[in-house]
């Protein structure tokens, strides 16, 4: 093992950025905070991307490990203790000055601090807390901070970090407890779910005491509220578990363990008096991530777990990470296979359908059909299985009905509702609104008419055209015009 104790800051940065790159969540969203005199920074609720790396992923935060030394031996992880890789450890001061100076130059939106586990979970968490404390109180940093809660760290240290961070996350690592046992022998479901529950309770308490400033609700929460379903949260344990068992058929181990950890009635936050509460406790909520394709779960199992996490742990986001076999471990899928990127993409699409569109996991997949269609996105796939609900009349359909039409997103559905108050909409207006016509055209009517008379509402016909590079709809455009023109003024996607 190479210990780079005297390494310069540049070498350390190279090693610790390399070590952190497999963490997925680089988002800076979920909290809005104004700039203040004497401080540096502000936060935008929608998040801001600052660059895109060679793999096309967004760079929003300075994503680094505090140290890549680790006492654990998780099979999938590049930093496991049995690996012979260069090791380095930052000092709190180094992390602070990198964050401040990068931020001033508008390179980043804030800091994403994770760490290998050095000495013990408590020691590691204590170093993270010290770094965040210095950044907020000495350097007066007012930008975004995301930090990891180290599984197994004491509740006091988790709370301490939560008063400085905007978002915290505990990695679920693998979708099922069985997978975790096999691949991460030093971690257990309960050391992961305990801090998750603690943070959830803390955020709820902070929200009760401080209002929106203490932490806003998740997109999932707002969607459930709009549709009139039971809201997520630890108070809803019973409804959450009924839903879980109802959807899954067979009980999954994660849900069983999630039930074991009952929502604690005790106060989660104990440090109100002696901490700066102006930002609230983890105001941007918590997220988690899991590795896709290292163990044998189906998409259906993954979506069921995701839904359980949104319902029972009130998470803001669940991230999926296509497995890259960095260790060439023989017990894992072969190292020369490509990371399952398409599968990861489909899971993210389905995740958005849960959070913003009001879909439920069992509407998209089932025990009998446990994997997503590779060729069609989950929404088109769903629509093709429910052709009896189409076509939808743009000028009269409800918001939730519009949302289920392929090619219509949350923004365009809202614009349609507003615009049709001032007069009937035609297909030209829909283009201006931002509806993706090449998908929507099979499923909608404007004043009773479909866009082209040759369109058929037929599963085979639509499937063939959705997949085809030169579908029938092209006929309607003539030779010169292509679909590309439609996206010319479309909104920039701001999530990362």
């Amino acid at each position: 093992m190479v210990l780079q104790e005297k390494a310069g800051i540049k070498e350390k940065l190279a090693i610790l950025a390399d070590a952190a790159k497999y963490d997925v969540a680089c988002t800076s969203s979920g909290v809005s905070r104004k700039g203040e005199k004497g401080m540096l920074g502000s936060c935008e609720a929608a998040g801001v991307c600052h660059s895109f790396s060679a793999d096309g992923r967004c760079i929003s935060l300075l994503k680094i490990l505090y140290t890549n030394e680790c006492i654990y031996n998780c099979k999938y992880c590049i930093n496991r203790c049995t690996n012979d890789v260069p090791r380095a450890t930052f000092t709190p001061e180094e992390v602070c000055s990198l964050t401040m100076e990068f931020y001033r130059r508008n390179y980043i939106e804030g800091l994403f601090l994770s760490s290998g586990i050095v000495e013990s979970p408590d020691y590691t968490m204590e170093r993270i807390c010290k770094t965040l404390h210095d950044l907020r109180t000495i350097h007066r940093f007012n930008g975004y901070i995301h930090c990891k809660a180290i599984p197994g760290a004491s509740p006091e240290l988790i709370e301490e970090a939560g008063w400085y961070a905007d978002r915290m996350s505990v990695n679920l690592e693998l979708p099922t407890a069985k997978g975790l046992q096999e691949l991460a022998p030093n971690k257990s479901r309960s050391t992961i779910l305990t801090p998750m529950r603690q943070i959830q309770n803390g955020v709820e308490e902070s929200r009760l005491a401080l209002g929106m400033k203490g932490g806003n609700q998740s997109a999932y929460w707002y969607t459930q509220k709009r549709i009139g379903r039971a809201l997520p949260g630890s108070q809803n344990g019973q409804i959450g578990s009924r839903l879980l068992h109802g959807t899954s058929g067979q009980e999954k181990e994660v849900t069983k363990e999630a039930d074991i950890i009952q929502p604690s009635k005790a106060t989660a936050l104990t440090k109100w008096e002696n901490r700066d509460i102006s930002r609230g406790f983890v105001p941007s909520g918590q997220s988690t991530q899991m590795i896709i394709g290292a163990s044998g779960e189906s998409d259906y199992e993954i979506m069921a777990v995701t839904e359980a996490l949104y319902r029972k742990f009130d998470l803001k986001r669940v991230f999926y990470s296509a497995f890259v076999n960095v260790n060439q471990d023989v017990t894992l899928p072969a190292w020369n296979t490509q990371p399952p990127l398409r599968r990861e993409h489909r899971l993210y699409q389905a995740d958005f359908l849960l959070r913003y569109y009001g879909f439920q996991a069992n509407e998209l997949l089932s025990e009998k059909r446990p994997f997503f269609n590779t060729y069609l996105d989950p929404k088109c796939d769903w629509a093709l299985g429910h052709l009896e609900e189409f076509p939808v009349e743009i000028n009269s359909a409800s918001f939730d009905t519009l949302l289920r039409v392929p090619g219509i997103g949350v923004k365009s559905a809202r614009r349609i509702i507003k615009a049709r108050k001032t007069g009937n909409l035609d297909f030209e207006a829909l283009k201006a609104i931002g509806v993706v016509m090449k998908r929507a055209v099979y499923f909608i009517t404007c004043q009773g008419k479909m866009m082209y008379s040759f369109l058929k509402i037929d599963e085979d016909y639509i499937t063939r055209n959705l997949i085809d590079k030169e579908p029938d709809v092209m006929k309607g455009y003539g030779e010169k015009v292509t679909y590309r023109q439609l996206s010319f003024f479309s909104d920039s996607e701001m999530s990362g």
Partner: protein
Amino acid sequence: MDKMIRVYQCEDTVDGILSAIYDAGISGYGHEYIRIEPQSPGYTTNRTLFSEYITVQTDSGKKDSVIKAVRSKISWKAYAFMMNALASDFSDRGDVVYRFVAYGFTMGKQVCEALQLPCVKRIFAINRAVQNEAHYFNEFLRFQEVAQEPSLLLGVIEPRHHVIPNLMQHFGERFISEWFIIYDKTHQEAAFHQADGSWELRLLTGQEAKKLEELTEKQEEYADLWKTFFDHIAIVERKNQKLQTNMLPLHYRKYMTEFH
């Protein structure tokens, strides 16, 4: 055609276009027979027969009264639409804003949602183009420290539209206690922000612009560290240049530290 088209020719500035809109509006000549034509320097008029040409005198009083009327009789959102459209580089913006405002005075605040109307559709698209560009620069603008004690940051952009007012809403708050300059090379204008104070936007002389450009030639330690981070954060197994270019188009990279 029974009535002649009346073309209001004005200065190619916010004040100029709004003065023309004011004159055209109170003339009562009839909206469909009115055109607004901003005349940028070097612009040659393509005069048509059977049109009447009127030269508009720029008058900030007229500008103020249009702005006041839009805010009070339509809405603040309409005002934002109008100002963003005027900050754009599209040559039809005078006409579009005129028609949008005319509809607004009869429809009220609903006009902003009425995407069925061609002029609203167009102002909506222009608005989106300007805001998208501003948003890109919020993300991709890079500062460098060009002086110390006190520290001074300088960022250079080459936008299509006049996005500095939009950018200053963001950076003025975020870097409230910093001294910084945002220099728009396309329009030769720059915003100067004072730490804990106000900021001003002004046109630069050739010499000032040259001075600013010389300042950016210095190399910085943190720029080097940033490039190190940028290179190491990518996952080789997932390399995807097409996705990167989609998300971060090449022309924004000209002044971005990590691509130099």
